[in-house]
């Protein structure tokens, strides 16, 4: 039986330029990275583009990865930072009127009225999530979308576990109050 290579072994191979090894890492983490991209952008097409950008950035930055932390931690750090940058750029683009109208995925709701209500509700939630500050958003997405535990979130963000708890709690409170106001 063939032994499954660890992340570290694959990283060493990838650093030598083996794209096959990097592809295996992509296979392992693409869904998780995509989930966090969804948490930030809420649109599958945009999230997929962002996932691609994140992995390409990781490939380009691989030489600088000293392997003191886990590959996943390092990758998620790249993911959240890149996502925040994309959001910032999108804000600028929509401010100067370059962004097209959001291409929402086709609704599967049979009842048109129900579909509109669900769509409106989703829009409200998206807006509420977008109102969180960057730190809260990062912690919230890593905790709820990626299902990382507090310790893992703390490692990705480079802050204490207590700080993460506080960020997640404040994010939840803020979301509750925003959603409540509507």
């Amino acid at each position: 039986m063939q032994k499954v290579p660890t992340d570290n072994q694959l990283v060493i191979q990838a650093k030598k330029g083996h794209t096959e090894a990097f592809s295996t890492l992509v296979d392992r983490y693409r869904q998780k990275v995509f989930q966090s991209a969804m948490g930030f952008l809420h649109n599958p097409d945009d999230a997929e583009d962002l996932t691609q950008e994140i992995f390409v950035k990781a490939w380009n930055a691989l030489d600088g990865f000293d392997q003191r932390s886990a590959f996943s931690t390092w990758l998620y750090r790249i993911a959240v930072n890149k996502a925040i940058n994309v959001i910032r750029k999108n804000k600028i683009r929509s401010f100067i009127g370059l962004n097209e109208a959001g291409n929402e995925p086709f609704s599967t709701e049979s009842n048109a009225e129900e579909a509109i209500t669900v769509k409106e509700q989703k829009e409200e939630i998206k807006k509420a999530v977008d109102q969180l500050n960057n730190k809260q958003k990062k912690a919230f997405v890593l905790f709820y979308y990626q299902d990382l535990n507090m310790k893992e979130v703390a490692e990705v963000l480079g802050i204490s576990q207590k700080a993460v708890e506080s960020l997640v709690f404040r994010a939840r409170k803020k979301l509750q109050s925003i959603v409540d106001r509507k």
Partner: protein
Amino acid sequence: MKCNDFNNKLAFREPLKDVTSEMHQHIETCASCMEAFKKTKALFAFIEEEKQVSVSPYINTRIRVQIENQRTRPKMIRPVFVTVMSVILVILGFFSAELFQNQSNMFDSAEIIASEYYFSDNPGTQLEEIWINTYQDE
């Protein structure tokens, strides 16, 4: 249980999974907390729904293609460099425009002098005066 306690507890928990019986009792008697609970539940249902979306299996191929393209393509000029060069070019453009502006002013003033000279009543006297005033002291 007070509404504030309920909200704090709600912020710590996953409303689709673990809500205590105490919290349940509270929302049965408090309409505003029931509303907040429903909305928070909707929020988490939305998150669950987004988490269920799967990434395309072709993403791996797309990433590999982009990485391979980067290897074969010569390095592009960095965008920062392009921005700096553009700013320099704009500044140079302003300076050169300024130069042409001055030149056209010069032509304009020469034209005015010439026309004043030719259309004055006695053109020769002006020149004579200038000549006398300039070379008088020598």
